[in-house]
């Protein structure tokens, strides 16, 4: 056991810290960027992705040929720690980079990787996900959107919903039912679909903060060639589960988000203690608990990463991660709002939620998206503890 990062990682950390210090958009330095859930903010974030890509920071863990640095898991974790410490912008390309890319690396053809990965890394093509449908949420296998064979192509019809980034994205990845006779998890195919294809209609959906973080996407005879099928036809569920594992597991949820938020919480608590000592005394235990949980998540991630690098897999543990980080995130932000007390409800002068309220609104989605925590607890109970299915 050795919990020190290696010299390469420490060099990477210094390099990343210096670069981010110089380039992260801040007040007086072209920032902070407008919300990425607005048209203007989406474009600004796309520019930031490009800036990162050009300095080879967009995808540190990818091979160099696709724009990365050939970094390992710990290189990526170190970069993420610096990224959050610098309070750099939310990654508008994260659906593609963290959810689709691992699947492309595993199931994509060489042509597909060459075609899709570089523009994904540069922010030229932003991806949204097409999993849920109006009647297929927690019950994802109830997907009804269809892919029918016509000529040598596929024709997509149906509707996807809760497509994060869907309002402004360039491409969508998702599952469609290609074999109508097959049931549930069988007979699905994983497609890559350009959002400007004829027959695609996007209806932006305003979320809790009033902005269009997600969208419904309608498919009306959308023609897609075989080259845009990821993995084998009718085996989309297995392909998607790899992506879902990424989403729920290690890749997306960098621990730095929580350790950074916990550090800010401690600072907020210190300020609160000056003006509202009774309030601060009451919330001290919750503040410390947030710190403990954030650190627990960080060390847990290091353990998992060590195991993965040794050839292990994440598996059902991803469900434990999901429950833990989503509850930790909520607890951190709830505690912050309690520390703010009656000021917590206020919007800023532009009518936007300030940082803690904004973070709370985001955290509220945590127990819901990427498989509700109820579904995750079922998975933990059944697959880890071996309890019987209902």
């Amino acid at each position, binding site marked *: 056991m050795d919990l020190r990062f290696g010299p390469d990682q420490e060099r990477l950390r210094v390099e990343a810290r210096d670069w981010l210090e110089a380039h992260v958009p801040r007040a007086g330095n072209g920032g902070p960027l407008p919300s990425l859930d607005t048209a203007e903010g989406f474009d600004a974030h796309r520019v930031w992705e490009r800036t990162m890509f050009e300095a080879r920071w967009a995808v540190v863990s990818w091979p160099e040929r696709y724009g990365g640095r050939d970094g390992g898991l710990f290189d990526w974790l170190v970069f993420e720690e610096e990224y959050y410490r610098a309070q750099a912008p939310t990654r508008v390309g994260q659906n593609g980079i963290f959810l689709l890319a691992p699947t492309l690396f595993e199931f994509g053809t060489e042509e597909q990787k060459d075609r899709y990965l570089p523009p994904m890394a540069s922010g030229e093509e932003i991806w949204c996900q097409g999993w*849920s449908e109006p*009647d297929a*949420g*927690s*019950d994802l296998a*109830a997907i009804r959107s269809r892919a029918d064979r016509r000529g040598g192509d596929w024709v997509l019809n149906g509707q996807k*919903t*809760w497509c994060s980034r869907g309002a402004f994205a360039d491409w969508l990845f998702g599952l469609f039912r290609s074999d109508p006779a097959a049931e549930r998890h069988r007979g699905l195919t994983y497609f890559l679909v350009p959002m400007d294809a004829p027959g695609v209609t996007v209806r932006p*959906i*305003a*979320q*809790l903060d*009033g902005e269009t973080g*997600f969208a419904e996407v309608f498919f009306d005879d959308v023609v897609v060639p075989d080259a845009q099928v990821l993995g084998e036809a009718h085996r989309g569920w297995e392909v998607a589960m790899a992506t879902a594992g990424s989403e729920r597991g290690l890749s997306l949820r960098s621990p730095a988000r929580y350790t950074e938020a916990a550090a800010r919480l401690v600072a907020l608590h210190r300020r609160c203690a000056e003006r*509202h000592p*009774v*309030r601060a005394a*009451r*919330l001290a235990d919750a503040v410390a608990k947030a710190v403990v949980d954030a650190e627990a998540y960080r060390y847990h991630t290091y353990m998992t990463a060590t195991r993965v690098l040794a050839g292990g897999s994440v598996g059902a543990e991803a469900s434990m991660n999901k429950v833990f980080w989503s509850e930790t995130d909520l607890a951190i932000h709830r505690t912050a*709002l*309690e520390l703010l*007390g*009656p*000021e*917590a*409800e*206020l*919007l800023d002068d532009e*009518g936007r*939620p300030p940082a803690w*309220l904004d973070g709370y609104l985001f955290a*509220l*989605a945590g*127990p*819901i*998206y990427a498989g*509700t*925590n*109820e579904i995750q*607890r079922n998975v933990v109970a059944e697959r880890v503890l071996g309890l019987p299915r209902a």
Partner: protein
Amino acid sequence: MQFAFDDRQVEFRAQLRALAEKECTPADLRAAWESAPGWSADRWRALGDMGILAVTVPEAQGGLGLGFVDLVLLLEEAGRSGLPEPVVETVAVAAPLFAALGTDASGRWLEGIASGEVAVGVAAPPGAPEGPGGPVLVNAGGALLVLPSAGGALHVVETTGAGSAGLALEPKRSVDGARHLVEVGGEPPAETEVAAAGPGLELWRRACDRGAWGTAAVLLGVADRLVGFGAEHAKARVQFGKPIGSFQAVKHHLAGALVRLEFARPLVYAAAWALDEGDEEAPRLVSMAKSAASDAASVAASVALQVHGAIGYTWEHDLHLWMKRAWALGAAWGDAGWHRARLLGQISW
């Protein structure tokens, strides 16, 4: 011991419910979010006509001369229907205060309240330790503004715009778009003083108790509506071939929220009675009521959102109108923790 409401009180609530079903639809609420001051003079007058604004106004000033037990079911209904108007500030906080003042001016204000012409906002002093709704905030747009000076004297300002009586009134937006807040800057001038420092502070403290209590009553209704949203969705939404309400996790979430609500309710009702009686236990009961109601509404909001899933996370679905109200009112007039600290004597208005 008779811990129940009489038929007249229950009937009064039914009248408000009928009015709100017509005049305060979700579409009306969304309109209130979009426009300042966020509430409707027409609806305010309709509330006056049905009598709720006159409940605590003495009969001599055209009011009903009733008390808080008569008012509590109405406030609960106001929460259930989402009424954006400053009913708590006007009827629970200001009218009893004005009645206690007994001046010519306060008599006129009371008449205006009873007839639905006057609405009141309340602001806490900049120096208040942990006050109602932040040190300088007010649920406002009212024609009258009640606030103490930093020294503890009590003032009533007739507002006429952004710079009334030398005070700066700067609009502030809340996460609950139906709450149109105002930040009050400056000190009220001497001519608006209605009670000197000593008695003014005492009047203010009792006013804060009524504000916290009234807000607790509204929160009961908010929580009730949120549990209702959750239960309806759980019955209607089908996943895995059955309504999600048949899954134990969903059942237990909602049952837990309902239990918190049902046990907050008697504390709010008991506090109403204690306020009516001038009982010395009233401040304690108010703090118990507000902490329990804030918690119940907070739990109901969390549970309702979780049961809804993504659809509850949208602006289109009405859930968030009540969820954000639960957050905002939960913290206003002292949040649950503030009132529990007060219960132990660690803190006071």
